[in-house]
């Protein structure tokens, strides 16, 4: 397949990863969080924030477990105000 024939609607469902949240999370936590380790509240998988699947074009930025797809964190950033909604997470460890 040489040409990208996907429609804009299809592409908008493509995820990026936790690196894309580096700026918003650094504001929320005061330190880089892409190297932090998260434990999923649904499947117990432990992974780096950088390895999570992130959907940017939802209302808010949705960070999902790369193993089971559970929503771990939803972040909103409206007029400089960060909203951090923790969903299916049992632990976050970072330095």
């Amino acid at each position, binding site marked *: 397949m*040489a*040409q990208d024939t996907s429609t*804009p609607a299809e*592409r908008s469902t*493509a*995820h*990026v*990863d*936790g*690196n*894309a949240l*580096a*700026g*918003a999370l*650094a*504001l929320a936590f005061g330190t*880089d969080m*892409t*190297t932090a380790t998260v434990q999923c509240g649904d499947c117990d998988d432990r992974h*780096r*924030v*950088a*390895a999570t699947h992130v959907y*940017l074009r939802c209302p808010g930025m949705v960070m999902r477990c790369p193993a089971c797809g559970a929503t771990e964190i939803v972040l909103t*950033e409206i*007029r*400089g105000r960060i909203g951090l909604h923790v969903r299916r997470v049992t632990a976050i460890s970072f330095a």
Partner: protein
Amino acid sequence: MLRWRQATVTQRIAETDSATTLVLDVPGWTTHRAGQHVDLRLTAPDGYQATRSYSVASAPARPLAITVQRVDDGEVSPFLADVARPGTAVEVRGPVGGWFVWEPNTTDRVVLLAGGSGIVPLASMLRHRRRLGDPTPFHLVYSARTPDRILYRDELAATTEGEHVVITLTGDDIPPDWDGETGRVDAQTLRRHLPAPSGGLTYVCGPTAFVEAAAASLAVLGYGPTTIRTERFG
């Protein structure tokens, strides 16, 4: 303290028909680590704001430069690639990201796999290596659709000792004089151009589909998941 800063475009470099490098002056900017990005924010006259991430293209300690590939129906990239000029003001936050970074003297060997504009943070790593004269062997495989989409072409071709650069074209119309690789990055292509998987770190960056295909091909070659760092541009 991380915060939004006013930035001014000081220089605009047309890289290709569809990609532009912008050099930005950001008061208070210190420096970045190779592989990091900035968040960039545009504000419309009615107050509507759009934020996107752009990798730093320049080497650490050099003026901040980003390279923007135009996405035709996009909200932000056409403005940056086609409209922004010296004097244009934008807001920038960063540098951010501590995972997708390369530091000299930390690894025996570096493998870089780039798809499309995913070359940008990897170019920062390569520029860093060249500026420092760092001896770490670098192996770059860069996939682009067509020759006119290749970013930093001459610079990438000017390899120094210890660098291996391979460009593969994935588009339909391969020019007859093209003597590089063709076809998508798969396990066979990688086996031809990469060293055996021992030691070292691998950085993979580009569109999500590219990153996933490249990471799967690395796994086929026996590259361990803990040695691979990925960044998806969407």
